[in-house]
Structures are given as structure tokens and as C-alpha cells.
């Protein structure tokens, strides 16, 4: 089976991911279609981490012995790699967090405290109904705690942002607009440039949750026109074939300099007296304590790996698989896809309903055939509520996904229908 747009070296790429050789209970080979939840790791990421732990492990910055120098160099090289991966205008604008959630909370939490960007009573924060909980709850906490107002974009029936009231939503009271680039439930790709332009025009800052975009879209921040470039961008290591425990917040130096510190402690200081402290410049100002060192180094290897395969090629591959999957899924009787049906304008996460079977039960039957998908609300309860469903089943592919795995999914769905005795 060969589709237009698939990665040419797909078989070789699959060999890079040891877990894909796993057989599950009953001798079933693994069909991993849960990559939007977390991606699998290539051998080179694992080996890089092992090499660090076995040969170079030391704390960074503060340690000036040879191991310390090696560790610091590897950690800061990872920052360079991540900066290159997203085309960051400056490498010091890349801040390591523990995941995307912490990155988003860092912004929402510090906006409560001080500085010219401070959010207070009468101010408005705008999000959307398709956000992941990690881009909803931090803003609820911020607005509840400061007396500001939370507003949001609704969704069209097709699963796109309803921009009809954009001029009311983004107004002179708006201080922050925070939205996802690619929806983890609906797959929708949002018009970041257009919304950023509107937000900048009223003096608001724009925060983009790129957790689902970074794995599949080529990103080049420096190449964006300044008025269309978000001010802050978050993503998470474990979805870009990196380890858990590491996330990224990129922010423009101008905005990061305006934010007060987030976590206080070692490494983020300039000087400390009992009576008061002064803080280091970015990126250290936002990296209190011993950072996730081996995780950052693993992430560096991960984005290098993606870079070698090529983000353009990965994007094409995702589109090809997504188109194939949309077609296959819709051939299953009683199955409805939630979100856009046009593969070219969406990401690779596809949520669906199957009449007469609850998503948990679907996922369970699929699992008995080795097919791993996600069932539930995918941390996007409001988006599910918008479509009048409480949960859904989601398949999500990545650079290692083969068409035959989509076939296996479709077959397993047919089997589910028969297992639950649907006509």
C-alpha cells in the first residue's frame, strides 16, 4: 500500500522506534494510534539520554568541573536545537518548563502579579471553546483571582472557530488572547496570523498553545511578520518524540522581560539577601531550581531527529495518513467524525462517534486487537459539550504510522460493531 505523500523511508523510520516491535497480550502486534496523546521515542533519543546519565551526568551552570562543563554544554546545546526547531529569533527566548501545561500556567500565573502586562479588574482574556483544559483552567484561575473577565470564541458546526464576533471579542479591554494552533480533539488548524494581527492592533498579547502544532507543522517564528507573530508559544517534549518532564515556552524577549518571576529559587537569581533579591535575565529568570537536564538533552536529540526527517516531509506524511484515515473511518456504518473533513486543512487527530457503542467500549475492543486509541474527553470537555457529546474515540497518527495500521483500525471498528451486535 503506498499513498502519495508518505515518508519515502517509512520502513526505516519505523525501525528507529523500538516500541513498534512490541507484541501485546495474545500475540497482537502493536498498532499505536495515540500519538496526539504522547508520541513514541526513537532509539537516538533514548541513547542520548543514556549516554548523558552514564557518562556526563552533573548539575549545570553551578558545577565548574569537567562533568559540569559537559553537562552544561549539552543542556545549552539543546536550547540551541529547540530554538532552531521553531525558528526562534533569539536562543535565550527559549525557556525550559516541565510540560506545555506549566508553560501556559507560567504566563497566566505571572500576569496576575506585576508589570505593565498585569491583568486586573475590567480587563479581558480571550480563549476558545476548543482549548485543551491546560489552556482553559489557567485563565479561569487568573481571571477569577484578579477580577478580570474570561471570554471565548465559539465553534462552528464544522468544528472551526466562529470568528463572526471577533471584533466584539477582541477589543480595547483585551489584554491576552490565548488559543491553540491545532486542536487536539477536532484537528482544526486555527488562523493564528489573523487573530494575532487583531490582538496586536488592540495592544493585547497572544499566547499560542502549539502542543499539537509543533509535532506536525513546520514552525519558523523569525520568518513571521512581527504583527502576526505570537508573543508566547508553548509546546511539550513528549509529543515531539522527546521524553516526558520537559516542555518549552518561547516568548519574545520584550514580553518575557515585562513578566515578573514565576518560581523562585536557585539559578533564577542575580543576588539574594534575606531582605530581598534581584533576578537573572532570560532564560534563567524562569528556570528556578535544577532544570530537567537529561530531559532537555533528550528533547534536543528529538527535534534534531525530526529536523533530519524534515518537518515539511512529516507534515505531508501526516496529511496523507489523515486523508486515508478520514476515508476509511467514514466507510464504517454509524460512524461520525467530529471536526473538519478536509485533510489538507487539519491536523492528524481524528475524533469520532460510533452509534450504539460508548467510546470506552470501542477502545476496549480495539485494544483486544492491539489497536491503541484514546477514549474520553481528551482534556477538551467544553469542545465535547459544544457538540453535545460527553466523550469520543480518537485516533492519532505520526511520522511512523503506516496505512495498514489505519486498515487495522477500520477492521477493528467493524469487529466492534459485530461484537456489540449492531445490525
Amino acid at each position: 500500500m503506498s499513498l502519495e505523500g508518505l515518508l519515502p523511508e517509512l520502513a526505516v523510520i519505523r525501525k528507529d522506534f523500538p516500541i513498534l516491535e512490541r507484541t501485546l497480550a495474545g500475540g497482537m502486534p502493536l498498532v499505536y494510534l495515540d500519538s496526539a496523546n504522547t508520541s513514541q521515542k526513537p532509539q537516538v533519543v533514548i541513547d542520548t539520554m543514556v549516554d548523558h546519565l552514564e557518562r556526563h551526568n552533573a548539575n549545570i551552570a553551578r558545577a565548574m568541573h569537567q562533568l559540569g562543563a559537559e553537562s552544561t554544554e549539552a543542556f545549552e546545546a539543546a536550547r540551541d536545537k529547540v530554538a532552531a526547531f521553531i525558528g526562534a529569533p533569539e536562543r535565550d527566548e527559549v525557556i525550559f518548563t516541565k510540560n506545555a501545561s506549566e508553560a501556559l500556567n507560567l504566563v497566566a500565573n505571572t500576569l496576575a502579579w506585576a508589570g505593565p502586562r498585569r491583568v486586573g479588574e475590567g480587563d479581558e482574556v480571550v480563549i476558545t471553546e476548543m482549548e485543551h483544559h491546560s489552556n482553559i483552567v489557567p485563565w479561569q484561575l487568573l481571571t477569577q483571582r484578579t477580577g478580570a473577565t474570561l471570554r471565548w470564541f465559539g465553534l462552528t458546526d464544522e468544528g472551526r472557530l466562529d470568528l463572526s464576533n471577533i471584533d466584539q471579542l477582541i477589543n480595547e479591554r483585551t489584554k491576552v488572547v490565548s488559543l491553540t494552533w491545532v486542536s487536539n480533539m477536532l484537528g482544526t488548524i486555527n488562523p493564528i496570523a489573523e487573530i494575532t494581527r487583531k490582538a496586536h492592533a488592540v495592544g493585547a498579547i497572544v499566547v499560542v498553545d502549539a502542543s499539537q502544532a509543533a509535532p506536525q507543522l513546520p514552525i519558523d517564528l523569525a520568518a513571521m511578520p512581527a504583527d502576526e507573530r505570537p508573543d508566547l508559544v508553548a509546546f511539550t517534549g513528549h509529543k515531539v518524540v522527546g521524553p516526558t518532564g520537559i516542555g518549552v515556552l518561547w516568548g519574545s524577549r520584550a514580553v518575557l522581560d515585562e513578566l515578573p518571576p514565576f518560581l523562585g529559587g536557585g539559578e533564577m537569581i542575580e543576588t539574594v539577601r534575606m531582605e530581598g533579591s534581584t533576578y537573572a535575565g532570560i532564560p534563567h529568570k524562569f528556570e528556578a531550581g535544577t532544570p530537567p537536564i537529561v530531559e532537555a538533552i533528550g528533547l534536543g536529540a528529538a527535534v534534531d531527529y525530526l529536523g533530519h526527517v524534515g518537518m515539511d516531509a512529516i507534515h505531508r506524511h501526516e496529511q496523507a495518513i489523515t486523508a486515508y484515515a478520514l476515508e476509511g473511518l467514514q466507510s464504517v456504518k454509524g460512524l461520525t467524525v467530529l471536526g473538519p473533513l478536509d485533510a489538507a486543512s487539519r491536523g492528524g487527530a481524528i475524533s469520532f462517534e460510533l452509534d450504539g457503542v460508548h467510546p470506552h467500549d470501542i477502545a476496549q475492543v480495539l485494544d483486544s486487537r492491539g489497536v491503541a486509541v484514546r477514549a474520553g474527553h481528551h482534556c477538551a470537555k467544553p469542545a465535547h459539550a459544544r457538540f453535545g457529546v460527553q466523550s469520543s474515540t480518537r485516533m492519532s497518527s505520526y511520522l511512523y504510522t503506516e496505512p495498514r495500521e489505519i486498515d487495522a483500525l477500520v477492521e477493528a471498528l467493524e469487529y466492534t460493531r459485530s461484537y456489540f451486535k449492531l445490525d
Partner: protein
Amino acid sequence: MTAQDLDALYQEIILDHYKHPHGKGLREADPDHSAEVHHVNPTCGDEVTLRVHLADGVVEDVSYDSVGCSISQASASVLHDLVVGKSVDEAMAIHQEFLTLMQGKGTVEPDEDVLEDGIAFAGVAKFPARVKCALLSWMAWKDATAQVVAGDGDKA
């Protein structure tokens, strides 16, 4: 899991209760001797709204409205069968027995005399991710019952 495990999980009894749940729907109850709770499974979003009506230390009714998978729906139905008409103490003992079964990771032998159709859930205990589904309405029932008992106590 294997196809065999699948069948152990989805016993006919479970699928029957799922398709034809017993006691489903919210029913009116004397407000002095009843309580309503709403529980969710945060992982998957399954929800149950459940009302307990006690009278003279006896479980008069358990009525509920719920959205969820076959396991969670069937277990609410079995709960209804097992506790309605029992004294609160007896019902709590059954609850404990069901809890022990579900938390036993598949090692506990269920007692059919106590759990009746509930023994069909023995297979669920092997799937940690599904144990929460099976316990959703049971936990809600315990919570609601405790509230009525506490409320009655206040009035005593």
C-alpha cells in the same frame, strides 16, 4: 488484552444490564430522607446523578441518571438490584464486598449469594482502567447514603 479477556470483561450479564438497565431514571423522594449526588469520572467524563431514599434504616429507592460506558451503566443497574429493599447496614456490607472484588486485581473470588449478578464484574477487576467505571455509581450511592444518614442524625 486478548479476545478471551474481552469476553471475561463483557459477560452476557453485563451486556444485558447495559441494554436493559434496572431502576434507571430519577424519581421523586421525600426530601427529609433522601439525598442527591453527582459524581464524575474525571478521566473519561462519565457521569452519574444518583438519588438515595431511605426510610426507617432501609434503602427505599436508588434512582439515577447516567451517561457512560457499558460497564458503568451495568454496574448502576446491578447496584439498584442489590441494595434496594435492604437495610442500610446490609447494603453497606454489600458495597464493601463489591469494592473488595473490584480492587482485588482479579484475585478475589466473588460470593454469588451476596453479589448475585454483581459476580459478573469479577472480570472487570483485571482492568485497572475500567474499575473506576464499575465503581462510579457505587461510590455515588455511598456518598448519598452517608449524607442522608448524617442529615437524619442532625434531626435526631
